[in-house]
């Protein structure tokens, strides 16, 4: 079974939500990224969302965009990132889903990407700039190899589109918790609960909540209503904050922050 499916199944039986940290591959270096993934695994994260840096992201906020520039300044390529995943797989079975722009995917080729990603040990992908209408090819290529292409639903998504998206998405659904780009807003929108409830009626897929969740309190709230909680910018900001320090210190500091998020996500009383 695909690691993503297995993980959500296991957590569902336990009745706890998944905590999913996002980091950018290669920020500040590929070696540090590998250590961060292993650290997050040890600290109780359930899955990793691994950002593939892109020069012109439109779906990401300024914090993640800066991390892309830092990563790209060392000249890393998609091939290096797949190599990194292969390396992680020697030590960890934590599910890893890549976040990759359609610009990169198109250039690399859908089928080629799925093949090489699966061989390296990636379990799925989210493609933030690929709406469902254009996603057929990658979803189908993914299905052939049990590679999960998870699709997005936004608060602005109309009911017709929700129906379409829940039918096509693989592995889980990624619900965008604020209208807008990745980043940190102080409150989680109120109507969120209702929207998630509506989606869960339409599908048995797990729903993960991301975009705009930055504090342990928000993670706790999000964990009450969704099957998974994704935190990106807040973690990337921690990495940036410690990027002048030795890698082991950075890994430990960011690990502590992630553990805090894990605990509040799971501690639902």
């Amino acid at each position, binding site marked *: 079974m695909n690691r993503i499916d297995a993980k959500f199944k296991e957590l569902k039986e336990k009745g706890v939500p998944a905590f999913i940290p996002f980091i950018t591959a290669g920020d500040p270096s590929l070696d540090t990224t590998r250590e961060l993934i292993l650290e997050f695994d040890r600290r109780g994260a359930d899955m990793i969302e691994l950002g593939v840096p*892109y*020069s*012109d*992201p*439109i*779906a990401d*906020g*300024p914090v993640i*965009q*800066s991390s892309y*520039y830092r990563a*790209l300044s060392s000249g890393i*390529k*998609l091939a290096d990132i797949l190599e990194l995943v292969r390396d992680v797989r020697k030590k960890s079975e934590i599910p890893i889903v890549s976040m990759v*722009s*359609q*610009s*990169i*995917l*198109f*250039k*690399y080729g859908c089928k080629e990407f799925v093949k090489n990603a699966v061989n390296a040990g990636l379990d799925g992908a989210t493609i*933030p*700039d*690929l*709406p*469902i*209408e*254009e996603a057929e090819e990658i979803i189908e290529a993914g299905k052939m190899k049990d590679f999960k292409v998870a*699709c*997005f*639903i*936004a*608060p*602005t*998504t*109309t009911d017709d*589109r929700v129906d379409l*998206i829940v039918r096509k998405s693989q592995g889980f659904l990624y619900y*965008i918790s*604020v*209208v*807008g*780009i990745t980043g940190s807003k102080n409150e989680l929108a109120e109507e969120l609960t209702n929207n998630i409830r509506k989606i869960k009626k339409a599908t048995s897929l797990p729903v993960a909540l991301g975009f705009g969740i930055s504090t342990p309190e928000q993670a706790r709230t999000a964990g009450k209503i969704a099957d998974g909680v994704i935190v990106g910018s807040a973690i990337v900001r921690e990495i940036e904050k410690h990027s002048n320090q030795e890698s082991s210190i950075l890994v430990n500091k960011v690990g502590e922050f992630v553990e805090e998020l894990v605990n509040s996500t799971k501690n639902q009383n």
Partner: protein
Amino acid sequence: MKTMTNNNINQSEAFYAQNVPDKSGHFGEYGGKFVPETLMPALEQLEKEYLKAKEDPIFNKELKYYLNEYVGRPSPLYFARRLTEKLNGPKIYLKREDLNHTGAHKINNTMGQVLLAIRMGKKRIIAETGAGQHGVATATAAAMFGLECDVYMGEEDIRRQSLNVFKMKLLGANVIPVKTGSKTLKDATNEALRDWMSSVVNTHYIIGSVVGPHPYPVMVRDFQIVIGQEVREQIQSAEGRLPDYIIACVGGGSNAIGIFYPFIEDKDVKLIGVEAGGWGYDVGQHAATLSCGEKGVLHGSLSYVLQDDDGQTSQVHSISAGLDYPGVGPEHSYLKDIHRADYVSVTDDEAVEAFSMCARLEGIIPALEASHAIAYTVKFAPTLDKDKVIVINLSGSGDKDSFEVARKLGIDL
């Protein structure tokens, strides 16, 4: 035999108009919508409203009123006698988009889109700008209708186009400097799209060229085809026939498609787009997307793109801020592939030379963007017979470029 040929042409005419782009905005394989889910409903709403407006006589009447009375259309098609004599080739006509209010073709589009924004009940306008012409045209239309206006502009372009920055501020717009990436048009576009993601409920994003996700490439084209429609009538009355060549510069491609489109079905009219060759043809030295690029996805559509083998956007360069862009409108990619239009390029130096030449010979200072189209004509015209006719789209005025050209020529203003 002759009728047969005509029939075939008619069939293909109908084919283009009816099938390009298809319902989901694809020009052949190009175009489409590659944007975050958050924006999809906004694009759907925009498309619906646009299609309704396009068929609405009241909307069209209103747009025509503003284009005539405020923008100053129709713009003249001027016979450039001294340039023609100098090049000793075909007759050269200049389509004077520089004489529009705000000094470029950009306002044809912003008038249309602002009227559309008002129909959609959006109170705030955002835009990206490179040369600042689109920013000024947007700020102008927004000022006239009392809408709030934020314009994203790369820091590098703010430096090169300080006059336009000042004008936008005078017009009440807020100019937001973009410090990321190459600090030029592509980065301003990223930033504007990002703004729109979180403001879509009350904000309309006016893209300045035939780029971006569907429906922008079609919609902006439709607002610009007034250029070509006028040329068709004007050249008929001046020459009693259609031109042999139409030459326009291509940044995103809006002035070019605007003058090309009404002639797309006239296969004897050759369409030539001129891109920015910059300093030369190594990566990072030019912005000749169709000449040197490959298929890729940038800013919401599939088109030719200047990018590396990993899909990362390449650095580009042009002396002209309006052409300094690593992408191009999807319809141009399609026209290139079906060989309906040819795309060539000229260098910074050639453009600057044409800039001066046009000023001295015709008393018209052209925008550096349009100078690219003139520069190609300077090279190309002498190879043609004198009985041919060329129309150049003089997309804008060079007032905004005086400082940049002076700097390039080593003159301190």
